[in-house]
Each structure stands twice: as structure tokens, then as C-alpha cells.
């Protein structure tokens, strides 16, 4: 922006249109100050000084404006109160409908049943059989199955310390971790189980709660396969 010097004299007070006289000042700061001086030559010293002060202020803020427009500007987006309130309410209702804890627990149990954790936990063997039984028998023998499970859990307690430490709840996690790692190492060294040939689909993380089959969303545990190499190569 260019700066102008506006002057008025009392002789022209009767003619408002011609009241103000305009002079374009040069872009150079020092030269502009000199121009102000020569234009306001017979004016009082105080007024000249004030005019030059104002001019300095104006040039400085013009410089700042130019610098700011080059930087990134923060864009302010107005919030609409009604919409904000509506969204907050809907979020609360969705939270209640989601029942997150139950959903997470269900999902974890499903993964346990589907053997994604391998043999880290003691009970999977029994759970797997139980799951098969339950699926076949279709919920008529559930009460019997549960009683059996309880008995077998007691048996497990004799074999490994892990199950006993249940009582300490969730504050002894470090101890749990140590126990688990030791048991895990033993098991992994011992076993060489074959898994069925996995399609490329199962490598992806399928979103859950889909209707039919649920692939193992995450892991690809690699096992050494000694038998059946031919079928694998054909499938791949």
C-alpha cells in the first residue's frame, strides 16, 4: 500500500469537496519523511512531528501485514451451536449403544476360541473341544459342558502356576508376564503343528462382526512344515 499525505487549510473550509489536498509520498521511507517536511513547511513543529510519527506507525504495520500474508494463515471455521450440541448428544447415545467393554471382551474370547493366541494360555485345548461340542450339540448340553470345564480347570492348576495367580487380580502383571514368557518358550520349542493353507484374504485385517467367517485378522504364525509340501505349492 502506498501512503498519501492529506492537508487541509481553513481557506477551503467552505468547499468540502476541495477541502483535502492529497500528495503521494514516495516508497522510500527517508524520502517520504523529507517530502512530508517540505509539504508541511510552514506548519507548526509539533504537528509535523506527529504526522511523521503516524507515518512511521503506518509503514510498520504495512510491513507486518505483508509478512503475515506470506506465512500460513490460521483459518477460523465457525462452529454451529445446534450442530455441536446435536453431535455431542448423538455421541453419548452411540457410546451407550456401543457397550464397548462387552464388545471387546467378546472379541477377545472369540480370538481365544479361534486359537489365534496359539498355546500361550493353558485352557485353549479344552476350550477348543468344548467349542466343538457346543456347536454340535446346539446348546442342550451346555450346563454339562460347563461343569466339565470347571473340573478340568482344577486339573490345570496342578500343572502350571499361571492359573493360580488369578487371585492377585490385575496388579501383578509383571509377575504374570515372566511366568507367561517361560511357559511360552517351552511350548513353542516343542511343537511343530501344521496350519491349514491360508489364502491371501486372511492376511488382511478383515473388520469384525461380519456375518460368516472371521479370518484370523492379525497374525501369521509360521511353523515348520515337513509333510505335504506338494499341496501347498499348488495352492500358492
Amino acid at each position, binding site marked *: 500500500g502506498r501512503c498519501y499525505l492529506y492537508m487541509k487549510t481553513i481557506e477551503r473550509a467552505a468547499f468540502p469537496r476541495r477541502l483535502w489536498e492529497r500528495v503521494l509520498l514516495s516508497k522510500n521511507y527517508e524520502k517520504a519523511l523529507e517530502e512530508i517536511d517540505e509539504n508541511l513547511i510552514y506548519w507548526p513543529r509539533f504537528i509535523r512531528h506527529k504526522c511523521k510519527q503516524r507515518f512511521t506507525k503506518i509503514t510498520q504495520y504495512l510491513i507486518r501485514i505483508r509478512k503475515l500474508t506470506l506465512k500460513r494463515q490460521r483459518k477460523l471455521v465457525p462452529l454451529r451451536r445446534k450442530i455441536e450440541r446435536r453431535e455431542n448428544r448423538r455421541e453419548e447415545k452411540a457410546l451407550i449403544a456401543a457397550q464397548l467393554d462387552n464388545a471387546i471382551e467378546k472379541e477377545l474370547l472369540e480370538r481365544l476360541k479361534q486359537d489365534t493366541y496359539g498355546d500361550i494360555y493353558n485352557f485353549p485345548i479344552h476350550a477348543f473341544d468344548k467349542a466343538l461340542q457346543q456347536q454340535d450339540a446346539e446348546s442342550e448340553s451346555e450346563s454339562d459342558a460347563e461343569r466339565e470345564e470347571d473340573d478340568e480347570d482344577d486339573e490345570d492348576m496342578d500343572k502350571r502356576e499361571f492359573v493360580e495367580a488369578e487371585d492377585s487380580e490385575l496388579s501383578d502383571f509383571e509377575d504374570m508376564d515372566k511366568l507367561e514368557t517361560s511357559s511360552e518358550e517351552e511350548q513353542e520349542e516343542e511343537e511343530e503343528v501344521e496350519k491349514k493353507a491360508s489364502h491371501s484374504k486372511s492376511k488382511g*485385517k478383515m473388520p469384525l462382526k461380519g456375518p460368516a467367517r472371521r479370518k484370523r485378522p492379525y497374525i501369521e504364525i509360521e511353523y515348520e512344515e515337513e509333510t505335504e509340501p506338494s499341496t501347498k505349492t499348488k495352492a500358492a
Partner: protein
Amino acid sequence: GRGEGRAPAPERVLFPPTFSVSEIKNKQRRHFMFLRWKQQQRKEKLALKKKRRKEREALGDKAPPKAVPKTIENQRVYDETTVDPNDEEVAFDEATDEFAPYFNRQTVPKILITTSDRPRGRTVRFCEQLATVIPNSHVYYRRGLALKRIIPQCIARDFTDLIVINEDRKIPNGLVLSHLPDGPTAHFRMSSVRLRKEIKRKGKEPTEHVPEVILNNFTTRLGHSIGRMFAALFPHDPQFIGRQVATFHNQRDYIFFRFHRYIFKSEKKVGIQELGPRFTLKLRSLQKGTFDSKFGEYEWIHKRREMDTSRRKFHL
């Protein structure tokens, strides 16, 4: 007129057939008539309920099963882009989209977390906690740098994802998640952020183990791609020793993020303890390339006028 101290109205009141309570001009009388009408409705409803219950008990075993109550999820308008798990076209798309290298294990995720200019205390702490939740992530402060300049630098240093947390009045309120080597960019509105100390629990800090990921309820195509975006943040192989799980649960277009530690008490019971921050996200837009507000090609934008018209229609 009708005095308030009158005895309740007689059972059979005769009115001309075109009468309605709202036509009475006098407010007091109208109010009174309306209350009486309401009481009558309630009585009728109660009587109906009792009758039904009696019938049900009378039938005993032969009674028809209880009707399933209608919920918003039940009544949801069927979305034509819902993914069928057996769909081959979807599977093919997913095998060739930008996340394919991640799912084929060719890339390891490396995340850069940053904020908008001059983040305030809460945002800074939230960023740090988020960095502990997501393995292999780094927090860098943005001191006035333009995103468009950061992105090529990130790509050069092998980052796979960029998270920008936008802040407003000292609380984080937006999240931009961008998959770096030319991947999609999603812009979310973030709400109800709770830091670790605000969550009521008495657990410890999350460890360095790689957590598992749970993605719930991402049904449509759009939901699918967002779900894969989230999945791509975490390394492919979770460490089950860590027993940590990060959950992204979609419910009515709101994505709830939680971070828990679980423990199996038995085959049928699992205990979870919440650690780590929690927040909810709502998708605002999905862009095809990396972050570019002016020239980007938007795959999906939330248009309020068109998309918020029905209460039972959701997009994720």
C-alpha cells in the same frame, strides 16, 4: 367452565366428532382438556399391557417369542456399499490399494505425530500418550512449518504415516491421518479426549509390546478403507505377551478408540483394564492423495445437508 377441583371426568364423554383438544381457544381449559386426554391415553396403554401379559402367561410355553425391540442399529437404512466378506471385487481392490504393501508385510509402520502451531499443555500430553500407545512413533513439534513441506521430508525419512492433531482453545479437537507414500488422508473431528490420569483405574503404563488391534463394525466400503488405515498404524505382528489391545469401535459413525490390557481368567471370562488415552472420532473427509486442502481429490466429504437428513442412515 371446567373447574380444577372437579372430580375426574366421566368415562364416556360425548364430543362432536370433529372436536380436537387444540381447537379450544382458552388456554386454561385447553390445558385441562389435554391433561385429561393424556391420562386417558396412559390408562389405555396400561390396560393393553396388562392384557397382553395375561395372555402371555395364559399361553405359557406356546406363547409367541417376545418381539425384538427396535434399535437404531436394527432399523439402519441398508447401505448399498456394505461389504460382503465373500466379495471378490472388494478383495481384489484391497489387494491392490495403497495399503497392500503393509498387509503384505513389505513395510513396517513408522508414524510421525505432530500438532498444529503452538500446542498447549493438554495437547502436548495427549501427543506423548498417543506415542506410547502406537509403537514406532515419534512426536515432533511443528514450529510453524507448512505441512506440504514436511511431507516430502517425511517420505524421504521412511515414515509411513502422519498424524496431525489440531488444537482449539487448549484442547485437541481434530485429527488428520495421512498415509504417507501417496496414500489417503482422512480428516476427523475428535471429541471427548481423556488423558491417562483422568481415566479411573489403578493400572500401570502401557509397555513397549506391540498391541493387538480390534476393528469393530466397519461395514461399508468407506468403513473398510478407514479400518485399514487404522490397522496400518500398528505393526503386523502383535506380541501376545504384552496382552494389550487397541480397539477402534465404530458405532453410528462415531469411532471410539480405547486401549486396554486384558487377562484371561478362564476360557469364558476375560478381564480388561483400561490404560492409555481414549477419544472418539467422527470422519469428516477422506482425500485420495496426501494432505492437500486446495487441489486434493476428495473421495468422501461429510455434507451436512445431504447426509444428516435421516437418523438411521450411517456411512461408515
